[in-house]
């Protein structure tokens, strides 16, 4: 009997086993199939695309999922799959959350192009708004507001209204965001949205509040009066909001404070509400999110008294090593900040040294910052840095670095000698073309700005070791190595301008320095192949030399040759300049320049032609004093200097009046009593996340019991009568101080530390962990392991 049973059992068992194996192998085949499919959604063959419709109609969730995934993959590839819209819409109420989410993604993409069909799905979303799952409620609202069909505007407003009163903060957050979409779709809903918004502003949840602030900025940025009653509470909620919410909330509060609060001049007589904002915002400097740090920086830079500005220096600099993108953006803001308050950053200049691997815009901004920070104390390391950068392999940056030397010399007069030595060394050593030509241009403008008139040549030098003339002589000697046209032109101009040998011993032609004619000789040789800008300067040099040296046999011939070359040049500017300069000289040297041109029949140059003829002194004035002003190569632009603005980063206008610009201060702030709110008096310490409080031991609820201070009646009698009110606030602050200290210690001490002191195991306090020290247990991964006993 038992044996029969046993055999029957084994038979059954083996049959079952076979069955299981069969199913399993089937499933695994399926599995293998799906796995290969998963990665090949992107390479679906055409016939499979046709199959999608059938899949979407199928009763199996797996088929449907496969179908909708194929469609999403096609969207990804940039293909228009709107033809499947009717089939997809049918699945909008699918029980499978994953299918539903993918359907939503599809819907949002094509709803606008298929408004009629999209309307079919509205009912299902309205039903979802009452679902028990907050995720589904929020999703339904998000899709409903995302379908940009103006026809359903009123339905969306109703849905928003319903969700704004939802119990879940996540849904309320979605409601705030939906308001923006609704308003953008049809601004005429503003009047019905504002009451919902002002209701949401009272939201107690730190999760939703950031999006509410965002919606406020998007929908009714000018209705700051709605914030009066909520201002103080919003300030206190700041620290608990999520990081994106903090950014939006900070922007909103900064705008409110600029419009409604008096401008704080000094830290000790700040408006209490301003003080509250700054105190509540300050801990956010410790956020890991760079955009939060910047939002607080904006607040402190644009609103706080200048004495508070030092607080943002370290937090901002800490962002630099995060990533090259963040470094690039933060640096462009630091250019603005270091310009506005250089003394804050000057001791930290080494943090802005350029690395060879930085990207160009980072390098450029670092140089700008270093220049902003240059002082009489730190110019030496800075000029050494700029010198090092002149060897960079990026020509643009090399030129920036050399121009920086010039700027530094001008900004910090003491640095002039160092900078000139540095520039000269760039010229004498085997520098790149870029370094060489930039140095020449910079030296020229330095000489020009230091020596506005040629008369002072002999007496003035720009550096103790390098007389101006020595510098020019050296440049003149290098004329053949200097390839860049504008640099060559600079040298020629310098030679002409300072060629006068007044008061200097000269071995050459009297009246001019001895090396000047040679420069002319050398450049005339290559005249035909020079750039127009160089040719112009060659003629100018020739004219100046002629004027200074007077008639000199060889020189005159050289000059005449120059002019005849110029007269027949291909470039009309060169021809015109030659004529102009030639006629300038006619009064002094009737034949010198135009002698050879008599035969050419050039009417202007020939003798006997009427017109004004200038005397020698007048010509001197025209030629040498004509160029008085020195053009600043780089000047500070006031245009793009707003923190946190794309325009500042790009250095160009985005074509809009920036919404990021903060409003101007009012003459006087608004009445503080406007912001009095009785709900505010029941309060929690600003630094304890409310969520965490409720999670800690029950003992904490004692802290949560509302502390109702004696309600103050808002005084309508103006500022004088308001004084007691302010006094009241100071008391409240003191109260917060003590409360936060108390609650802080309560939190960890009340229920844990008291017992802990007695319960800590001896090894707990003695075994101290040192990283990389050889004591302690190392596990396989190199962790020092230690057992920690619970505190309770």
């Amino acid at each position: 009997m038992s044996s029969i049973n046993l055999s029957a059992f084994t038979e059954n068992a083996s049959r079952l086993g076979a069955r299981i194996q069969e199913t399993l192998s089937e499933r695994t085949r399926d599995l293998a199939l799906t796995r290969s499919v998963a990665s090949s959604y992107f390479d679906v063959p055409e016939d499979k695309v046709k199959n999608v419709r059938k899949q979407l109609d199928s009763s199996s969730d797996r088929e449907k999922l496969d179908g909708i995934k194929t469609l999403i993959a096609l969207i990804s590839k940039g293909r228009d799959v709107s033809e499947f819209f009717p089939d997809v819409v049918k699945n909008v109420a699918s029980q499978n959350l994953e299918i539903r989410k993918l359907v939503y993604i599809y819907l949002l993409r094509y709803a606008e192009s298929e408004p009629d069909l999209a309307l079919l799905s509205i009912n299902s979303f309205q039903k979802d708004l009452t679902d028990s799952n907050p995720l589904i409620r929020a999703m339904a609202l998000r899709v409903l507001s995302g379908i940009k069909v103006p026809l359903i505007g009123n339905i969306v407003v109703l849905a928003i209204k319903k969700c704004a009163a939802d119990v879940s903060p996540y849904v309320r957050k979605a409601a705030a965001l939906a308001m923006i979409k609704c308003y953008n779709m049809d601004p005429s809903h503003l009047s019905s949205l504002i009451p919902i918004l002002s209701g949401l502003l009272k939201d107690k949840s730190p999760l939703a509040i950031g999006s509410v602030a965002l919606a406020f900025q998007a929908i009714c940025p000018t209705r700051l009066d709605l914030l009066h009653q909520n201002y103080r509470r919003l300030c206190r909620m700041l620290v608990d909001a999520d990081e994106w919410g903090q950014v939006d909330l900070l922007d909103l509060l900064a705008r409110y404070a600029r419009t409604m609060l008096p401008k704080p001049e000094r830290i000790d007589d700040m408006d209490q509400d301003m003080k509250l904002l700054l105190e509540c915002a300050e801990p956010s400097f410790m956020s890991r999110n760079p955009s939060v740090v910047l939002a607080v920086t904006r607040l402190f830079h644009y609103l706080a008294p200048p004495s508070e500005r030092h607080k943002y220096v370290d937090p901002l600099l800490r962002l630099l090593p995060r990533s090259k993108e963040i470094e690039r953006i933060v640096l462009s803001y630091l250019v603005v900040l270091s310009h506005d308050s250089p003394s804050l950053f000057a001791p930290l200049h080494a943090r802005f040294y350029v690395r060879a691997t930085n990207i160009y815009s980072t390098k450029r901004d670092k140089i700008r910052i270093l220049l902003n920070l240059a002082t009489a104390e730190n110019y030496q390391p800075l000029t050494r840095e700029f010198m090092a950068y002149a060897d960079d392999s990026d020509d643009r940056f090399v030129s920036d670095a050399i121009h920086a030397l010039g700027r530094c010399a001008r900004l910090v007069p003491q640095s002039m000698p160092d900078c000139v030595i540095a520039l000269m060394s760039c010229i004498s050593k085997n520098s790149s073309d870029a370094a060489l030509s930039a140095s020449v241009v910079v030296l020229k403008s330095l000489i020009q700005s230091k020596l506005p008139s040629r008369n002072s040549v002999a007496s003035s030098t720009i550096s103790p070791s390098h007389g101006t003339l020595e510098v020019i002589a050296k440049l003149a000697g290098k004329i053949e190595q200097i390839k860049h046209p504008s640099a060559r032109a600079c040298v020629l101009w310098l030679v002409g301008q300072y060629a006068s040998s007044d008061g200097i011993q000269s071995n050459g032609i009297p009246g001019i320095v001895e090396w000047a004619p040679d420069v002319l000789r050398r450049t005339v040789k290559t005249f035909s192949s020079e750039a127009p800008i160089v040719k112009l300067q060659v003629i100018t040099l020739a004219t100046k030399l002629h004027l200074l040296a007077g008639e000199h046999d060889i020189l005159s011939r050289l000059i005449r040759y120059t002019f005849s070359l110029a007269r027949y040049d291909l470039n009309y500017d060169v021809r015109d300049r030659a004529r102009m300069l030639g006629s300038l000289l006619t009064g002094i040297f009737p034949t010198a320049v135009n002698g050879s041109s008599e035969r050419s029949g050039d009417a202007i140059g020939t003798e006997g032609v009427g017109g004004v003829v200038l005397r020698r002194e007048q010509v001197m004035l025209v030629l040498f004093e004509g160029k008085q002003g020195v053009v600043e190569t780089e000047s500070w632009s006031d245009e793009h200097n707003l923190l946190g603005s794309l325009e500042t980063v790009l250095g160009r206008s985005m074509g809009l009046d920036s919404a990021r610009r903060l409003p101007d201060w009012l003459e006087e702030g608004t009445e503080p009593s406007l912001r009095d709110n009785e709900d505010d008096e029941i309060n929690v310490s600003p630094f304890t996340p409310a969520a965490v409080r409720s999670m800690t031991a029950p003992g904490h609820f004692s802290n949560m019991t509302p502390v109702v201070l004696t309600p103050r009646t808002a005084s309508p009698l103006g500022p004088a009568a308001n004084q007691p009110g302010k006094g009241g606030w100071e008391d409240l602050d003191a109260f917060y101080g003590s409360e936060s200290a108390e609650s802080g210690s309560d939190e960890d001490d009340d229920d844990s530390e008291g017992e802990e002191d007695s319960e800590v195991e001896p090894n707990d306090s003695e075994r101290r962990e040192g990283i990389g020290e050889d004591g302690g247990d190392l596990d396989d991964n190199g962790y020092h392991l230690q057992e920690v006993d619970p505190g309770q």
Partner: protein
Amino acid sequence: MAIDGLIILEPSGRPIIQTNFRTTSPVYPLLHIDAFNDALAKSPNGQLDPVIYISGHQGPSACCHTECGDLKLLCPVSGDIDPLYVFAFLSTFVDVLSDYLGEVSTSSIREHFDVVYQLLEEMLDDGHPLTTERNALSDIVLPPSLLNKILSVTGVSGLSKASATPFSSPIPWRKAGVRYNNNEIYFDVVEDLRAIVNKSGTVLSSNAWGRIESNSRLSGTPDLVLSFLNPTVLQDCSFHSCVRLQRWIRDKSLSFVPPDGRFVLMEYRHGPSSSTTLDSTRQLTIPFALSPSITIQEHGGSFDLSVTSRISSKPIEQLVVELYLGEGATSANCLASGGASWGFDPKTLTLRWELSKITQGSTNTLRGTFTSSASPARPSRAFRITFDIPQHSFSGVKVDKLKVAGENFKVFKGVRGRSTGDIEWRW
């Protein structure tokens, strides 16, 4: 202030993921993709400004972009938005992606594109960041796993549903109802030394940037207090949002309810304090010394480098010396001592010398020549040197103890140190 959308490009420059765009014009994303690819092709050695200005016929816009593995992430923005906000979002998104997919690459994105779309849908609502906390996200978008795949294949769809009660946790960064058999928490103290050394070997600027990466596997809602023996070495700290800032301000200990799983608990700087930056003696010491000698000639040059370790207690691992040989560099020919490897990458024009391990007392040299079509050759003015030192800390920060409150179980904690460095050495 909103992001217009997000595009992920594969290495070929074609988009694989594209979110819905706020603007109605279908040309808009295409314009940005083209402008980006164009700018990338034109940029010398791949260095591209992270924000590109784009003038379209609908008005100016900008393209913020970053890279992640072999992929490029593009965020077109129009209107005046803080680019820092965009990059902060992008880095959060990349963190979440790598949490979900492990390695983020073309193939992993292609395989799980539906998950990526779902994530984007939850993280970005009409250009505004929505849910970015990883603990909250994992409640609503299931991470891809083999188990989920098997479940979906076998048709047990009920099980693969995301948590039935999303957003039920009162703490936004921690999910509710976490249970572990073994309760453990690990702290990785990772420090990255960034320094610049000038031609004479003097350190010009140096800072160690530390971060404490944690991996929490604790049940329930534990309330932890982590204290340090020497908190004064930590400067310019920043914290995960779970840390109670007031407590840190008061007594320099970290009091927090940790998120579940991996997170960065805090970041800090260790280096010369603001007032002593100018004093070169207060700079951190570089754990090695490089003595370079380079001669530049008409079409190339020769070099002779040697590296020695300056720390006795631990070996320096994975020391990599890189030198960009400049536009037009064609080849290099070197001899490396002691089994170190070297290479020249013709694409980035960079010479790379890799030393897997150096200890004190040993001298490692690299001698060789390089050729260039440029005359004279213009190699970069500085070496870039990166390295690893396991079990080492520049700041010497020491964890004192960890106290647990709120839960009644034994907790194992593990603390591990690691150091890396990225030094610019000028020659």
